């Protein structure tokens, strides 16, 4: 407690430098970045990056640190863990480093306890003042410390480099250093890594809105303290109360949770309550639906009529490869979770699963690379080299063992922020104004309202914001006789493939209380006509596997639509999100085959359709 008292003091002093007036007269601070009236462009980044500072990454031989990770993301060349040079063709707009909190603090034990320190009279006085809790004396000592530092008169004991700051302190200081508002935003974060019952993946990434002056006032929560998400929310609430800052959580890999991510009880097996649902909805704003370890968006067994549900499946076990029963799928995937959330809202009075869409990498190399032609793999041991595709990757020897070729070169998240700053990006995540993609930087807009007309397609953004709600929002109860209409627009990645189609995925609870889903093709490239059963024929395929190339001769650069739900029932809860599909393109394995002149097993997929998912819009009856 005494420590905390003085820590608070130190931070007060640190805080001075962050006041705008101090920054302004310094001359080196970046000019203030103004927020636009509406979000104008999606900003792409990664909420899930481990560096060599994560113990599991380090074990595999990763030597990159947070500085390397931010440098790569912001456009600098770095050296990979296998000594290769890496540089992004297109830097990112922002990134969060999320090293595991477990085991993060140990660096500060380098010099645990040291009698030689107290032999110095000044340090003794510092120690005594802390022990006594005398704030006035502590503050005098602090000022003296700073003065001595500037005069070069610090006791020699503290000049010793053994006095390391902890990994957390260093991590957040590095984020501050690389944060360049308007150009590249470095957000502070960590991963709370709950592997319940031997590898049931209930991990959450924690993202901060704040700079290190606030983040330094707390220690990241570890699973040594608790594995219970309700305790995580208490930790988040305590952080906000103490610092006035803001944090949010993003769960990931429901697909590896062996049925636990969307289980309909509390973590400890109790009944869900309204308070639980509200807590979960308040703190957990987004769900990571695609990353290297597969997708958690949909499962073919849950969506048997969706011909696009079967992609990047990691569905044979949990994180440790422990086997999975088919009955577990229902409580692992986002789409099904959204539907269950509607049903639970009916009984609890609040929706526990109100998650927007997030995509990220979960790289453990410090290298966030989510492009197919630039995929550096999950671990150091699967960095680019001939034969990496066939390596056994995870859960070795267990039913859920995964091979390297099953890695997905995914994903990223587009954020509709009003500026490229920590505050604006965080606020957009908080609003759930986000979409996930499997890697391409396509743009997707979605607005829902009751008063849209065809003419609004011409000024979609303005009409969307003034007459409707954007993705992540809630539709008001329907006026009598009106069905919600959706303004939808998608643009291809400016350096990527054309688009195949835009779809609306609708989930709802029917009159008998059962959850249902339906997928609507809303707009598509070319002059295809829906065939038998209303299915649109495939767009075709231009991929040349000999060269790992494709052509934009098919598909569309931009698809826009005004779509009205033809089966809307104002009395039924519903959730709507947009899925965008690209034309077929080479998968990372196809680039490897060409680059390393190798032949892979025929079971290894070489062509796929990349995609984007928006955060949903929710409808609740009056």
């Amino acid at each position, binding site marked *: 407690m005494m420590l905390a008292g003085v820590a608070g003091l130190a931070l007060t002093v640190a805080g001075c430098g962050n006041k705008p007036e101090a920054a302004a007269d310094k001359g080196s601070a970046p000019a203030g970045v103004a927020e636009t009236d509406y979000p104008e462009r999606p900003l792409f980044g990664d909420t899930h990056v481990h560096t060599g500072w994560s113990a599991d990454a380090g074990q595999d031989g990763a030597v990159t640190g947070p500085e390397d990770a931010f440098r790569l993301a912001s456009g600098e060349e770095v050296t990979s863990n296998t000594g290769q040079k890496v540089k992004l063709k297109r830097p990112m707009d922002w990134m969060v480093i999320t090293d595991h909190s477990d085991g993060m603090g140990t660096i500060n*034990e380098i010099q645990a306890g040291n009698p030689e320190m107290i032999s110095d009279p000044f340090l003794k006085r510092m120690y005594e003042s802390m022990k006594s809790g005398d704030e006035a004396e502590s503050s005098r000592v602090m000022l003296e410390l700073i003065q001595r530092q500037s005069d070069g008169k610090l006791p020699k004991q503290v000049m010793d480099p053994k006095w390391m700051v902890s990994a957390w302190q260093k991590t957040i200081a590095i984020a501050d250093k690389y944060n360049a508002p308007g150009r590249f935003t470095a957000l502070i974060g960590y991963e709370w890594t709950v592997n319940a019952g031997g590898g049931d993946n209930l991990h959450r990434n924690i993202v901060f809105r704040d700079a290190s002056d606030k983040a330094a006032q707390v220690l990241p929560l570890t699973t040594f303290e608790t594995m219970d998400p309700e305790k995580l929310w208490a930790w988040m609430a305590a952080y906000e109360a103490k610092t006035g800052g803001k944090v949010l959580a993003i769960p990931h890999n429901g697909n590896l949770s062996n049925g636990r991510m969307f289980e309909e009880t509390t973590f400890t097996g109790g009944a869900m309550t309204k308070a639980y649902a509200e807590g979960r909805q308040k703190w957990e704003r987004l769900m990571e639906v695609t990353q290297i370890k597969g997708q958690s968006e949909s499962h073919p067994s849950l969506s048997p009529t969706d011909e696009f549900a079967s992609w990047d499946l990691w569905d044979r076990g949990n994180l440790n490869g422990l086997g999975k029963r088919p009955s577990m799928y229902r409580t692992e995937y986002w789409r099904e979770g959204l539907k269950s959330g509607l049903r639970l809202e009916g009984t609890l009075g609040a929706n526990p699963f109100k998650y927007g869409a997030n995509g990220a990498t979960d790289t453990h190399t410090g290298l966030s690379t989510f492009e197919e032609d630039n995929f550096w793999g999950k671990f150091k041991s699967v960095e680019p080299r001939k034969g990496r595709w066939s390596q056994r990757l995870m859960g070795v020897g267990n039913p859920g063992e995964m091979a390297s070729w099953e890695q997905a070169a995914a994903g990223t998240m587009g954020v509709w922020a009003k500026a490229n700053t920590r505050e604006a990006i965080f606020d957009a995540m908080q609003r759930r104004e986000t979409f996930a993609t499997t890697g391409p930087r396509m743009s997707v807009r979605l607005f829902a309202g009751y008063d849209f007309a065809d003419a609004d397609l011409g000024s979609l953004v303005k009409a969307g914001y003034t007459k409707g709600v954007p993705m992540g929002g809630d539709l008001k109860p329907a006026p009598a006789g009106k069905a919600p209409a959706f303004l939808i627009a998608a*643009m291809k990645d400016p350096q990527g493939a054309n688009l195949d189609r835009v779809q609306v995925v609708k989930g709802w609870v029917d009159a008998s209380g059962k959850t249902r889903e339906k997928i609507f093709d809303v707009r598509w490239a070319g002059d295809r006509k829906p065939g038998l059963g209303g299915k649109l024929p495939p767009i075709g395929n231009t991929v040349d596997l000999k060269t790992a190339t494709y052509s934009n001769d098919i598909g569309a*650069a931009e698809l826009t639509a005004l779509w009205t739900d033809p089966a809307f029932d104002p009395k039924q809860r519903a959730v709507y999100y947009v899925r965008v599909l690209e034309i077929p393109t080479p998968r990372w394995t196809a680039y490897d085959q060409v680059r390393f002149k190798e032949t892979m097993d025929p079971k290894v997929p070489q062509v796929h359709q990349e995609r984007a998912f928006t955060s949903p819009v929710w409808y609740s009856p009056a």
Partner: protein
Amino acid sequence: MTLKTLLREPLVHFLGIGLLLFGLYALVAPADSGGDSITISRAMVDDLKAQHQKLWGRPPTEAELKGLIDSRIADEILYREGLAMGLDRDDAVIKRRVRQKYELIAEEEDSAAPTEADLEAYLKANPDRFRAPPIVGFTQVMVPTDGTDSEVEARAAALKSALEGGADPAAAGKPTLLPGRVQPMALDLVAREFGERFAAALATAPQGAWAGPVVSAYGLHVVRIDSREPSGVPPLAAVRGEVQREWENERRLKARAARLADLRAGYDVVVEP
């Protein structure tokens, strides 16, 4: 340097926080003593309480504190017993962590702040790393591209003359999701949004007049440059934070490599064929 300006120095904050939190942490947490006696000192208990306070924003309850102390005792016993059994040997996690700590120490060995002259010299030696990209503000209108090439060409020309005649750019051409009027933006960020070809064309387009059609990743555009700032190397004052970061990064990497080279010189390393 007055105290007031000093307090604004990020390095001072960093050092101050580091020293306080971890210097003092170390003061109150005695070293592992080894042997078969374990003392949980008052200082250690204070430290456990302080960590709890920092984590949860409140002191531990009595039961929680007991749990923390018991866990600390278990750590100590099992760690010592494990060491005695050699469980730390050939453990990649332990090896990496110790290496990481060592590297961090090596990197931090010289942590003196760079002088003004250091930064000036660094900027002078590496001007391209700090060169600001050209900045353009522009208005763009998309040309509908259905039909034959000559039809599209004619349409682009007609659109251009309509705009030259004062037509409202927001209402002209094909509606698109792309922003019509783009506030001053670095050219490399324009390339990220519109594609490389488009950005390259903007770099040479005349200012204040409608030009084009220009090809982007999405189609054809008629464009007007509204404002332009050339590329250039900013003075140190404008990029001090960035220069200092790069200077420190270089020192960090050099220090780490130098320390390893020094140490390695003292080893007889044999790699068997």
